[in-house]
């Protein structure tokens, strides 16, 4: 059964590294209505930062493009986050998601972006087409809120 959307945020911004901080603070501000626990919010902020940094560093490598974000608060404290770009796309998603794999070692990228997203969120889905862009969808159910909704 499809879950009902309780609230939704949509935003888009250019792929400037200054916007990394803005994007995670915007998500954190929007989710504050759920009264999340500090560690849950910190996990989400870190995952968002990884997703947005990927768009800036990899998708729009030598250009500035637009990053699209959608954050949904679903029933029972479920948070849905979609980060989309129209950049270069990923040739091999499986390879890209391997911990420590990076195409930018000279820039001291650790190759842990997807590993962090996978570890800090409940679910992650990546869709990509070369030359067209990448979409990352992440979900996390806030434990504290789930308990509250279940009553």
């Amino acid at each position: 059964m499809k879950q009902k959307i309780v609230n939704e945020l949509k935003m888009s911004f250019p792929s400037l590294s200054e916007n990394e901080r803005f994007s995670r603070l915007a998500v954190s501000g929007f989710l504050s209505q759920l009264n999340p626990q500090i560690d849950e919010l910190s996990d989400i902020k870190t995952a968002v930062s990884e997703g947005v940094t990927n768009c800036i560093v990899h998708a729009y490598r030598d250009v500035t493009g637009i990053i699209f974000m959608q954050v949904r608060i679903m029933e029972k404290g479920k948070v849905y986050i979609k980060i989309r770009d129209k950049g270069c796309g990923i040739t091999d998603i499986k390879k890209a998601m391997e911990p420590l794999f990076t195409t930018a070692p000279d820039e001291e990228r650790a190759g842990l972006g997807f590993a962090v997203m996978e570890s800090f969120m409940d679910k992650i889905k990546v869709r990509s087409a070369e030359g067209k862009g990448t979409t990352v969808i992440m979900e996390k159910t806030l434990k504290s809120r789930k308990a509250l909704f279940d009553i």
Partner: protein
Amino acid sequence: MNVKILTDKNCRKITALIYGDLDHHTAKHIRSDIDSAIHENNPKRLIIDFSNVTFMDSSGIGLVMGRYKIMNEMSGEVLIANPPTYIRKVIQLAGLHKLCPIVTNSEDKPIVKPISENNSDNDLAQQKKTTISEGQNA
């Protein structure tokens, strides 16, 4: 200013106090400041202090790894000082504490020993042990 560098020439030690958020944007500036201090002072030990870091993602891991490589080539070492819980989580996910021991209160005494080989694939278990050992130290 995202980083303050304290040098102790007698002990050939540099302490880098990082402030605020550590992400891909701020890492660039912090990296160049630390690297110039390393080249000027030729230290044996680099302590990166995280007590005032409000946020860190994997860009922070890249930053520490890069400094580890430089210090390692100079036969020096890197210590990670006072990471808050949310930063410790990222560090342990990356297994970075195996290369750069975690210390607290700017004492150069590691509170987390590098994980032994047979434990290397279980960072979460190590995290629990860390909590216990901290409790005992307190």
